[in-house]
């Protein structure tokens, strides 16, 4: 093990780590936004729009991120839509994640028992009150496990960004291996930085899951 090499690579990995985290979380934020809006459109069955959203969700859930990124990054510029690799990574992750989040939120919303809505109506709550105070909190509780799984899945998917020449962790590792051939050291750093990126999320996820689970009615 060449410790000198590890120390000298560290700043490069740190830079890549920050970039990966930045684009990863921006993409996840975008995914949440797209997912929530799409889920509402599906839940309220808004004509035309819900058909479009359905097609979008099926299309992006059934194709790999790598293929989506290639299409956005190499295909779209031919039609005059030119975007940088960072925006592309963010957009790709957001679109992929949005389709997963939409499914998750929608099934959470649909899982609320009818008796809940009927009871709230009997208590004299208005439609918007029912949605905000009865349906949303329970739907969130139900979907939290799947939401956390989605976040971890999306953070892992950031590893394909290197394919569109975004200087992320994977790109840096590959580059350094090619330059100096210190394969073991480079891979060790790669693994360590991915653990640093994902282990806290995994732990925090387990914690939140346990806390929120108590909120389920009748459990």
């Amino acid at each position, binding site marked *: 093990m060449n410790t000198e090499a590890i120390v000298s690579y560290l700043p490069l990995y740190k830079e890549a780590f920050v970039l990966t985290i930045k684009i990863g979380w921006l993409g996840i934020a975008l995914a949440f936004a797209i997912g929530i809006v799409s889920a509402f459109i599906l839940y309220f069955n808004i004509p035309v729009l819900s058909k479009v959203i359905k097609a979008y969700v099926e299309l992006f859930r059934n*194709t790999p991120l790598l293929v989506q990124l290639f299409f956005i990054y190499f295909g779209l510029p031919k039609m005059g839509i030119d975007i940088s690799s960072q925006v592309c990574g963010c957009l790709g992750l957001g679109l992929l994640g949005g389709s997963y989040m939409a499914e998750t939120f929608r099934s959470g919303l649909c899982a609320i028992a009818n008796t809940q809505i009927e009871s709230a109506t009997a208590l004299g709550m208005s439609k918007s009150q029912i949605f905000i105070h009865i349906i949303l909190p329970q739907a969130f509780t139900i979907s939290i496990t799947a939401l956390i799984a989605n976040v*971890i899945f999306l953070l*892992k998917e950031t590893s394909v960004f290197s394919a569109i020449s975004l200087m992320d962790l994977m790109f840096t590792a590959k580059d350094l291996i090619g330059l100096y051939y210190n394969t073991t050291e480079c891979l060790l750093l790669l693994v360590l930085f991915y*653990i640093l990126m994902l282990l806290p999320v995994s732990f925090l996820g387990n914690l939140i899951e346990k806390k929120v689970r108590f909120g389920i009615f009748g459990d």
Partner: protein
Amino acid sequence: MNAFFEKLGFDVLLKGNNMLRLLQGLGVALRISVISVVISIVLGIILGVLMAQKNKVINVIAKIYLEIVRIMPQMVLLFIVYFGITKVLGINMEAEKASIIVFTFWGTAEMSDLVRGSLISIPKTQYESSEALGFTKSQMYMYVIIPQTIRRLIPLSINLITRMIKTTSLVMMIGIVEVLKVGQQIIEANRKTSPNAAFGIFATVFLLYFIACWPISQLSKYLERRWEN
């Protein structure tokens, strides 16, 4: 109409045997996923049953294994096996073998978790009732537990198959010539004659993956709904 096709870069698909080559590329990716899926399902069922036995040692080991798979991107695992392990052991491994090892390692973890989940989701009353009815242990598993477990398991494992197919697109990153790589080659070769090929080719690859995965995930959804209760 022809000019329109050319503008979108779809014309290149009809040149020579380009479309056939793309399909062959998809075939390579599908072959890797089918092999990995089959091995993962077998190993996953074995591990899942072991995990449901509540043996402390097995559970600790399994938990560490599952957590590794849960947080390590498949791409990192591919690099570790293809570049790392081969160098440390001083062996030569074909990229395809490395990718099958990685996807099996990953798929087995996912599958075992599904098996364990479906086994422990069978309520205790089912076991107790079959005992009260005088079933022997093997009868109880044969007629009561396993049929119910399978109903929960099949939709989830079909879903896992689509995820594995999608993940095999990563193998181009370790140099396997599959559908994306073939697409790049076609684009390079036709750079002069069809400058817009990138759009047509990658849109086609996008659709090919969709055609491969969508029916499978619909089947999973259908079975899940049908066997819900």
